[in-house]
C-alpha cells in the first residue's frame, strides 16, 4: 500500500487542449430577477448564435472558392444534394456495395464500442495497479512509453495475423488505440493521492480493498474520465482510417469506396456525419465528468 510519489507521464497536454468542461450553471432562472436581465441574456444568446453561424459561413465560403478553382471538388450545393440523398434512406441494404450511410455508421460505432469497452475493462484495473504500486509502475512504464507513440494502425497486421479476420482486427486496433490514454490517466490519478488522505488510510489501517475503494477510486475517477474521453476521441478518428484498410463495411470503407467511385459529394457528407457523431460521443463524457463533479456516482 505504498503508492509511488508522482508520475511524470500523463496526457495532460492533450487533455488541456480540450475545452474545459463547463462549470455547472444554474439552469432554472432565479424567481426574482431584474426584468432587464433576461432580455440581456436572450440578446447574448442570439449574438453568440450569429457568430457561430458566421464561422460556418466562412468555412463554406472558403470551400466555394476552392471548389471553383478545382472542378473535381463538389460545390457546397452539390454536396448538399449528396447529403440529402444519403440521409433520405440511411438504413437500406442492397448488398455490400450499397448500404445506407446509417448502417455504415452503426457498424463503425459498434466496432469502436467493442474496442473501447475492452480497453476500459483492461485499462482501468491496470492503470489502478501501476498507479498504486511503484514497482509495477517501474515495470510498465518503459513498455508504455515505447508503444504509446506508435500509430495504432501499425497494429493492424498483427491483429490480422492473430485474429484472422479483418473486422476483428479493426476492433483490435481500436482496443490498442483506446488503451493508452485510459491506462496513463488512470495511473496518473491513482498515483497522485493527497498525502493527508494516504495518512488517514495509514493511521486507521485501511486494508488494500478499503484503500482502493474509499481513497484510490474516488480520487482517480475524474482523471479516468479524462482518459476515457481522450480515448473515445482518438478511437473515433482511427476507426475511419482502419476501415479504409480493412474494407468491406463501416464509415471508413464508405469514404474510401466513394472516393474510388468518384463520388466526392458522398465523401464530404460522410465527413460531416463523422464529425457530428464525434461531437455526440464526446458530450457523453463531458456529462459524465460534470455529474461526478456535482457529487453523483458514475
Amino acid at each position, binding site marked *: 500500500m505504498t503508492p509511488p510519489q508522482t508520475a511524470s507521464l500523463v496526457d495532460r497536454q492533450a487533455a488541456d487542449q480540450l475545452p474545459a468542461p463547463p462549470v455547472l450553471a444554474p439552469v432554472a432562472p432565479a424567481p426574482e430577477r431584474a426584468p432587464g436581465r433576461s432580455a440581456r441574456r436572450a440578446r447574448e444568446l442570439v449574438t453568440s448564435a450569429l457568430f457561430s453561424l458566421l464561422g460556418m459561413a466562412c468555412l463554406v465560403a472558403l470551400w466555394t472558392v476552392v471548389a471553383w478553382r478545382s472542378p473535381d471538388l463538389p460545390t457546397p450545393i452539390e454536396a448538399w444534394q449528396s447529403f440529402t440523398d444519403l440521409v433520405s434512406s440511411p438504413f437500406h441494404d442492397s448488398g455490400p456495395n450499397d448500404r445506407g450511410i446509417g448502417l455504415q455508421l452503426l457498424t463503425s460505432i459498434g466496432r469502436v464500442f467493442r474496442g473501447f469497452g475492452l480497453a476500459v475493462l483492461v485499462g482501468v484495473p491496470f492503470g489502478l495497479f501501476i498507479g498504486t504500486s511503484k514497482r509495477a509502475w517501474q515495470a510498465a512504464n518503459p513498455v508504455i512509453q515505447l508503444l504509446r507513440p506508435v500509430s495504432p494502425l501499425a497494429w493492424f497486421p498483427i491483429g490480422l495475423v492473430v485474429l484472422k479476420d479483418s473486422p476483428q482486427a479493426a476492433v483490435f486496433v481500436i482496443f490498442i488505440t483506446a488503451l493508452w490514454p485510459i491506462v496513463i490517466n488512470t495511473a496518473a490519478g491513482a498515483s497522485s493521492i493527497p498525502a493527508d488522505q494516504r495518512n488517514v488510510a495509514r493511521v486507521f489501517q485501511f486494508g488494500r480493498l478499503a484503500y482502493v475503494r474509499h481513497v484510490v477510486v*474516488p480520487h482517480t475517477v475524474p482523471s479516468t474520465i479524462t482518459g476515457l474521453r481522450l480515448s473515445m476521441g482518438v478511437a473515433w478518428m482511427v476507426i475511419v482510417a482502419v476501415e479504409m484498410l480493412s474494407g468491406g463495411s463501416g464509415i471508413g470503407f464508405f469514404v474510401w469506396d466513394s472516393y474510388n467511385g468518384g463520388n466526392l459529394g458522398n465523401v464530404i457528407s460522410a465527413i460531416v456525419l463523422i464529425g457530428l457523431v464525434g461531437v455526440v460521443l464526446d458530450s457523453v463524457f463531458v456529462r459524465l465528468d460534470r455529474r461526478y463533479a456535482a457529487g453523483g456516482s458514475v
Partner: protein
Amino acid sequence: MTLQLRTITKRFDGRRGAPTQEVLRDVELTVGSGEFVSLIGHSGCGKSTLLNVVAGLLEPDGGAVVLDGEMVDGPGPDRAVVFQNYSLLPRLSLLANVREAARAAHPQRRRRNDELAERYLTAVGLWEHRDKRPHEVSGGMQQRTAVARAFAVEPRILLLDEPFGALDALTRARLQLELLELWQSESSTETVLMVTHGIEEAIYLADRIVVMGGPPGPSIVEEIPVPLARPRNRAELIDEPGYHHVYDQLMQLLAAEDVSFN
C-alpha cells in the same frame, strides 16, 4: 497506557544541496495514563514532526516511541490522529467517514463498529447531518467528524495536531469543550497528546504543557504542570492565580524562544 519518547531525533534532508536540518534532537517525554498533555511552541519548531513520529507516520532517525512497554513501529489505530486540515475522505458521508475508519481499525467486529460510529457522531451533534458529504458542512462540523472518527476506533492515545487552529473563536471554544467531555466520558481513550500554538487553549485543556524550542538545540525546553482542578470553567479560570502563573511562564518561555529564533 503510558507513552514514552526516548531520545527521539529527526532530520530532514535539505532540498537541492540545502544542509540537512535537525528538527528534533534527543527529545525525551513521558505521558502517563489518563494524562492530557499539550505541546506548544513557535511555528516550525517541530511540533507536527514530533506528533507524526508518535503517530508512526514518520520514522525517527534516532530513539524510540514506546507504548506500554512496546516499541511503536508504523501507524496504527491505537494512536488515532486528528489532523489540522480535518482530512476527511471527500466522497464519503460523515457517517461513512467515521464508520469506515472504525471498520478498518477493527475488522472483526462489525456490529460494534457501527454502534461506535453512531455513538460518537451523535456525541458531537452531527447525527442529523450523517448523510452529508464533508464539503457540504462547515469546517467546525468537519473537525467534529474527525474527532468522532478518532474516538470511534477506541484508540489508547489520541493525537491532535492543532485541531482547532483553523476555526473561529466560538466554534473553537465549543469543540474544546466537546473534546474534554468525550475524553472524560466513559470512552476508552484516556490519554491525549495535543499540539497547539494557543496559550489559553493549552492551559484550559491540559494537565501538563510541554514547551518546545526551535534551533539551535531543537528539543523540549520546559514542562509546566497546570495546577487547575477539573472540571474547569473557562470564565472563572482567569480569576485563578494558578492560571496567571502558568500563563506568565509560558509567555516568558515563548518570548525567549522568539528572540533565539532571530
